[in-house]
């Protein structure tokens, strides 16, 4: 089956039925909603089973995709089932030109409106297979984690239903062969994030956060709708003539963008609109305000949705439609692209804000925003593969960090996330969580053997290589800041002496998100909670919860919490080896499996191949009536890039062929560049650790009073300044007033300007609504209607006096009128 000739790419059962991966979670969502409450584990077993099934299918698909790629490059070695992402890569033959592997597209006609037909189904390409596997894997682990974490919650079944639906939605989006299905998945994720953030909607803050998340993403979605429309009408004519599919088909859009015949106006406006949607969804610079507030949701939600999978949707969209962005923003030509600028700003803004947060999850949230900034920076500067690889690695260590935070709060600091009040010195009491945290932090900051290094460093390297030196330094600066705030978070949580709940005080009154679980304890709400239909067995779950707290004081979390954390930590350690470019020089090209399997090659493919081959034929289109823009004046073929190689992204493919991916550059790993970045990060660590110990440990008298004595030192410390953890008096008098102009400034700017504009827009819309309603609607439009009634009435009164009842007056009127009438007639006839 493997030694097929190059043209006929191998495909297998898994690749054919990729749509099953998404269907299973959605079906199980329905099952949970229907029978969840009556099952022994209240629906969570269906969720777990569906996630496990999806994972198995996804792994199978990945393996078959690898066989397919190998079969294309004439690779004759047979691939065992296990070597999917294992470290020891078989040496693939040095195929000079990597042939383009068409994604396996399998669609049905979903609905047709007029001449257009919309398919639903699956398209398995390198990128989508990778992310399908990633989402399935992470969802499974998070569901295992939340089995114990959310136990006792009143809406346990709802929680699992929503999380399974989310995974289903994300998988639908990932495998979408056309834009309409992508929008479908995109919006279902938006709905689930609304449901999950607002999981404990009793508190006003949670429901407001959920609303805010939904609105901000929805604002982005306007861009998605408009962008899809623009791209559709641009690409449709071309797609119909050449690829025999329509303007919605993602492959066709990719080919159209690089075909050189694409009208640059469509490309630019479409790309900008789509990027606005990505800014909204992936929490980039202007629209990132909802992500930290989204931490109001339970921790599994933050770890799954708001760190590794959902927020990555925006990056996925840019990666999937990369040719569109490549042509629109001429990424190839080395100009400062819109995406890269936004990415860079986000890195810095988020990293700075992470310093000021007391809530551990907020720190991680800002760190996610900053890492997303990295991915956007990579995509914006042509480093496609490192960015995608960073998605892959980032998912592991960020999710692990969040789960550790969850486990810390769950069993360490009595459900509170406040580092200042309730944590500290937990490393002795929670060893496993601590080690996992350390591994993930090292991975996040990009220390050598860990996953983060292979991807983040690659991004910085490629950014530099593609000619954006300034952005490279921004990336390095970001890495330093990451190291700094992660050290602070680690120190406050695990080192120093325990404070508050971590010290065992069982202050039951503190406000925390798990407060609802204790709602069931005796209290005014007793009848209501019993009445709550959602949770039939109110009585027993609440005492199960109590014994859990019997052993007071911080302790290591239960097994269900730890298994996912350990697995993730393992991946945080070794995931990097999936694409260790720096080692390529020693172990040969084959070691970079990401580059081989995930990155589509940029060699042109003849149209006939695209239409004929591939088991799932792309969507047939009845002759489209929808007139698209005349693609006569195609964009002038990308002229010779500045020093970059020619090929698909730069000059239009010969007529009759289409290429689906621009030829991106790959920076040659050089030892000193690696040293530079490692050195920078190490410096960041050193300073931060030193400062932490000195500052929080109060050991070094000299350092303690430093901030208020000399302006220069304070300026120096500005970036690495750790928390003003001083006793309250000292804090209020001096440090708070002076110490953090930038951090506080950014936070102020962020809350008052950006957030305020969003709220103001809402309030403004409401007030205009009220004004419009009162003035225009009621007074003018409605008034006119009532007015006509009033006028009729008034004239009636006026004329009433003539009806006086006196015969003589009638006579006078009668004859008078007759006379006047006669006179008029005479005058008219005479003249």
């Amino acid at each position, binding site marked *: 089956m493997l030694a097929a000739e190059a043209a006929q790419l191998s495909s297998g059962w898994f690749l054919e039925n990729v749509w099953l991966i998404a269907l299973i979670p959605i079906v199980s969502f329905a099952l949970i909603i229907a029978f969840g409450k009556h099952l022994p584990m209240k629906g969570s077993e269906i969720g777990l089973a569906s996630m496990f099934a999806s994972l198995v299918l996804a792994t199978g698909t990945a393996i078959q995709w690898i066989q397919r790629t190998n079969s294309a490059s004439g690779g004759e070695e047979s691939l065992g089932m296990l070597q999917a992402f294992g470290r020891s890569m078989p040496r693939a033959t040095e195929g000079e030109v990597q042939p383009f592997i068409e994604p396996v597209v399998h669609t049905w006609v979903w609905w047709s409106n007029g001449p257009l037909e919309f398919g639903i189904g699956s398209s398995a390409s390198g990128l989508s297979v990778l992310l399908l596997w990633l989402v399935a894997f992470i969802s499974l682990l998070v569901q295992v984690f939340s089995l114990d974490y959310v136990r006792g919650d009143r809406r346990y079944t709802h929680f699992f239903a929503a999380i399974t639906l989310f995974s289903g939605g994300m998988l639908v989006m990932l495998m979408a062969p056309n834009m309409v299905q992508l929008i479908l998945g995109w919006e279902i994720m938006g709905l689930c994030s609304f449901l999950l953030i607002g999981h404990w909607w009793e508190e006003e803050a949670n429901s407001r956060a959920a609303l805010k998340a939904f609105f901000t993403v929805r604002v982005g979605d306007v861009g998605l709708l408009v962008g899809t429309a623009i791209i559709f009408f641009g690409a449709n004519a071309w797609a119909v003539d050449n690829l025999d599919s329509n303007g919605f088909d993602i492959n066709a859009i990719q080919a159209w963008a690089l075909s050189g015949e694409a009208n640059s106006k469509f490309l630019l406006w479409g790309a900008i609109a789509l990027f606005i949607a990505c800014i909204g969804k992936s929490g980039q610079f202007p629209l990132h305000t909802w992500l930290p507030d989204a931490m109001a949701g339970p921790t599994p939600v933050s770890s799954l949705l708001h760190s590794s999978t959902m927020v990555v949707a925006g990056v996925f969209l840019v990666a999937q439609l990369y040719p569109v962005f490549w042509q629109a923003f001429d990424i190839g030509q080395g100009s400062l692209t819109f995406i890269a600028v936004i990415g860079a700003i986000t890195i810095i803004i988020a990293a700075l804000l992470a310093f000021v947060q007391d809530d551990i999850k907020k720190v991680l949230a800002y760190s996610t925003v900053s890492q997303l900034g990295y991915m956007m920076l990579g995509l914006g500067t042509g480093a496609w593969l490192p960015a995608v690889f960073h998605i892959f690695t980032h998912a592991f260590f960020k999710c692990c960090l969040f789960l550790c935070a969850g486990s810390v709060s769950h069993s360490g600091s009595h459900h509170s996330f406040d580092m200042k009040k309730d944590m500290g010195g937990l490393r002795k009491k929670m060893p496993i969580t601590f080690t996992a945290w350390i591994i993930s932090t090292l991975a996040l900051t990009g220390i050598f053997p860990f996953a983060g290094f292979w991807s983040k460093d690659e991004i910085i390297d490629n950014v530099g290589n593609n000619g954006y030196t300034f952005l490279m330094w921004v990336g390095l600066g970001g890495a330093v800041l990451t190291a700094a705030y992660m050290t602070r978070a680690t120190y406050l949580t695990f080192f120093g002496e325990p404070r508050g709940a971590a010290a065992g005080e069982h202050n039951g009154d503190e406000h925390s998100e798990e407060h609802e679980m204790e709602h069931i304890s005796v209290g005014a709400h007793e009848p209501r909670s019993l009445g709550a239909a959602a949770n039939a067995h109110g009585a027993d779950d609440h005492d199960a919860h109590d014994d859990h707290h019997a052993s007071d004081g911080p302790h290591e979390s239960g097994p269900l919490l730890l298994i996912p954390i350990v697995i993730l930590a393992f991946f945080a350690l070794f995931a990097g080896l999936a694409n260790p470019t720096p080692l390529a020089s020693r172990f040969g090209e084959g070691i970079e499996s990401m580059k081989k399997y995930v990155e589509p090659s940029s060699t042109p493919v003849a149209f006939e191949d695209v239409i004929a081959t591939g088991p799932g034929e792309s969507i047939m289109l009845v002759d489209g009536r929808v007139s698209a823009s005349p693609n006569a004046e195609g964009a002038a073929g990308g002229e010779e890039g500045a020093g970059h190689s020619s090929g698909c992204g730069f000059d239009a493919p010969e007529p009759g062929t289409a290429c689906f991916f621009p030829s991106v550059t790959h920076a040659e790993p050089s030892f000193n560049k690696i040293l530079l970045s490692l050195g920078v990060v190490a410096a960041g660590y050193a300073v931060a650790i030193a400062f932490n110990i000195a500052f929080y440990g109060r050991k070094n008298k000299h350092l303690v009073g430093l901030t208020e004595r000399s302006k220069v030192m304070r300026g120096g410390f500005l970036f690495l300044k750790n928390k003003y953890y001083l006793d309250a008096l000292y804090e209020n008098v001096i440090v708070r007033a002076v110490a953090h102009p930038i951090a506080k400034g950014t936070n102020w700017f962020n809350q008052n300007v950006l957030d305020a504009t969003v709220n103001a827009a809402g309030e403004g819309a409401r007030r205009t609504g009220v004004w419009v309603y009162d003035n225009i609607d009621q007074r003018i439009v409605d008034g006119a209607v009532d007015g006509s009634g009033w006028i009729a009435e008034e004239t009636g009164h006026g004329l009433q006096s003539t*009806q006086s*009842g*006196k015969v003589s007056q009638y*006579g006078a009127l009668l*004859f008078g009128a007759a006379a006047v009438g006669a006179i008029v007639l005479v005058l008219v006839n005479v003249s």
Partner: protein
Amino acid sequence: MLAVNFLLLGAALFCIGVYGVIARRNAVMVLMSIELILNAVSLNFVAFALMSGAIDGQVFALYVIAVAAAEVGVGLAMVLMIYRNRKSIALDELSEMKG
């Protein structure tokens, strides 16, 4: 003999009748003025009959007379009833039909 004579005479009678209807307060006087008007009209009819030579005008004159008679009959009956209820037949007091 000019046709104009008859027509002018008719017109004059008509206008006097109109003045009578407007000016008079007493119901019977108003009825009389109406009689004047009716006679003016039938005078016109006869004049036109004479002018055009066809005797239709005279036929109409007769009809007018007949109708006028009927009208006076009923009119006076009503006036009597009003008088019996109101003891006065001043028209400006009878304004129940006011709108």
